[in-house]
């Protein structure tokens, strides 16, 4: 119900600049993810939006109104803290009730809402426990439930699922998305899990060292990364040097490289013969015993349940990573063929 717009937001801790002038406009009801390496300023950004950290410079507006001087308790936010910050002297139910009491929700309705949310986070039987009697993941779920039960206008989630197993995570994601859509909560979601960011978000903001590196839809981020760093951060990637062979009619170029040909957009007016860096995701590469494609040798393989990761050496000595499903199994030293469709490559803008 609220549009959050951030302009040139900056935070300095002494001489250390944790957030360096970021600007982003989060639309009413939008679900946006902050993605970035550890220490890039995600939590700091969230805390500034919430009002727990002073802003060094820049503006934060809710629906156009500057909130820098509005105290946190009047911003109608819900927040999951990275370290949970559960009230140790209240039971699970008490922690959940707190926010509702602040909103003067009638007793009966309150109990009902608490019961519903507790059920969703699967802690109904733990309602009367104190936080110290809970496991790490249970505590995290209480933190999540506490922020969700108040159904705030803005939801700020700081790695709310980091300590949960995949199954529970999946369920929690559905739960969060569900409330968020139903109530129309503007949500900023901090996660270190790329897949999670991709799955859940309307848009993803990738941050590096306090700056925004890219902001776009999940598939843009994954498939059209703006830089090598982004490409590498949001998933595994093979970087290859290719040579421009030909400019095609529809403002695209044809490139050639160790794995064959590629056709990519040409925003920089590249000329024939120029060398460029392109990205190719490991899972975009087909691997087979017989071909088609270049021949390669398996250097190592890696099993992770649902997926296999291979490192291959091409005839020219260069190495590439390939990901397949485990039903395709190869051993070290096996000879294989690899091939990538020409449209799976992505030209990296900053790589010249």
């Amino acid at each position: 119900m609220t549009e959050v717009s951030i302009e040139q937001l900056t935070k300095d801790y002494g001489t250390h600049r944790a957030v360096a002038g970021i600007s982003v406009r989060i639309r009413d009801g939008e679900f946006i993810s902050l993605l970035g390496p550890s220490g890039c300023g995600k939590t700091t950004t969230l805390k500034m939006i919430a009002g727990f950290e002073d802003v060094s410079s820049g503006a934060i507006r809710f629906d156009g109104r500057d909130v820098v001087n509005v105290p946190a308790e009047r911003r109608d936010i819900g927040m999951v803290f990275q370290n949970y910050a559960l009230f140790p002297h209240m039971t699970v139910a008490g922690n959940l009730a707190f926010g509702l009491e602040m909103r003067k929700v009638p007793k009966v309705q309150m109990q009902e809402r608490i019961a519903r949310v507790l059920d969703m986070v699967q802690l109904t039987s733990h309602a009367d426990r104190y936080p110290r009697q809970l496991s790490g993941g249970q505590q995290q779920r209480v933190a999540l439930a506490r922020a969700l039960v108040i159904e705030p206008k803005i939801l700020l989630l700081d790695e709310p699922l980091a300590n949960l197993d995949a199954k529970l995570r999946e369920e929690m994601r559905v739960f969060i998305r569900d409330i968020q859509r139903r109530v129309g909560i503007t949500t900023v979601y901090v996660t270190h899990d790329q897949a999670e960011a991709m799955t859940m978000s309307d848009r993803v903001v990738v941050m590096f060292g306090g700056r925004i590196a890219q902001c776009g839809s999940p598939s843009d981020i994954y498939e059209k990364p703006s830089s090598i760093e982004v490409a590498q951060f949001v998933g595994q990637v093979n970087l290859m040097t290719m040579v421009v062979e030909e400019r095609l009619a529809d403002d695209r170029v044809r490139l050639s490289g160790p794995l064959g040909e590629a056709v990519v957009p040409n925003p920089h007016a590249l000329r024939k013969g120029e060398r460029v860096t392109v990205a190719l995701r490991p899972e975009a590469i087909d691997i087979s015993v017989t071909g088609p494609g270049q021949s390669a040798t398996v250097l190592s393989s890696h099993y992770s349940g649902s997926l296999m990761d291979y490192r291959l050496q091409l005839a020219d000595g260069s190495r590439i990573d390939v990901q397949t499903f485990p039903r395709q199994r190869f051993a070290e030293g096996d000879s294989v063929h690899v091939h990538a469709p020409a449209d799976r490559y992505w030209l990296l803008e900053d790589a010249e």
Partner: protein
Amino acid sequence: MTTGSSHRHAPLLLIAPAAILLFVFLVLPYLSIVVMSFRTPGQGSPYGEGYTLANYARFFGDSFYLGQIANTLMIGFICTLACLLLGFPVAWQLARGTSRLRGLAYGVVLSPLLVGIVIRSYGWTILLGNNGVINRSLMGLGLIDRPLGLMYNTLGIVIALTHVFLPFMILPIMSAIQGIDPSLESAARSLGASRATIIRRIILPLSMPGIQAGCILTFVLSLSAYVTPSLIGGSKVKTMAVSVVDALVDTFQWPFGSALALGLAVTGGVIVVLFSRFTRMTWKAN
């Protein structure tokens, strides 16, 4: 935090020195005092022949002493409450503030303890006396025409005791507040709690160990305070501790004095235990 059965008794070593000290130098010496409290009053000797319950009977049978107990407890309660109300904000400020003057502030907080009790009372006389600074200024301003009774009464004692016991309230609460993770305050704010609510619902319960410590200390100390009540009270307000000293030292009635003292100590102890129980029930902080 336990380690295993061979180490299970190790914690007892922690309490052993205190236990031995208290047993040898408090319990043993007091055995004779307990016995003393059942002795008959003596003539030309500390106590007389035989044993009696008369000392306790005199204590509990006389509305004068019961009134004194009530008065003493009332002074204790009021001082404790006053110290809490005055001390908590200061403790909070010291714990959370970032001022450079903090070192000085600690000094100010401790300062009442740094002036010997007699001199301190002198200071109060100058301020609160009938001819004191406050009364004289008020009369000078024409606000009052007779001195306000600020001294030689319970009010004066409460003021002076509150003053000197404030440090005992502030320091424990301060260290308790320091132990509270500020992110809990942030969490409460994110849930919409105002500053006052945060203090009431988060800070107060979580600093309970400190509040408990401060209250117990203040209460116990004000029960047994002797010099301040006798100097500020001008021998007019009788508290139990003053009577105890009178009986023990000034009028040499050891059996009766012992009975008074033990009665006072037991009463205080019972209240302290009740207080701990009650506060623990109210705030399950731990």
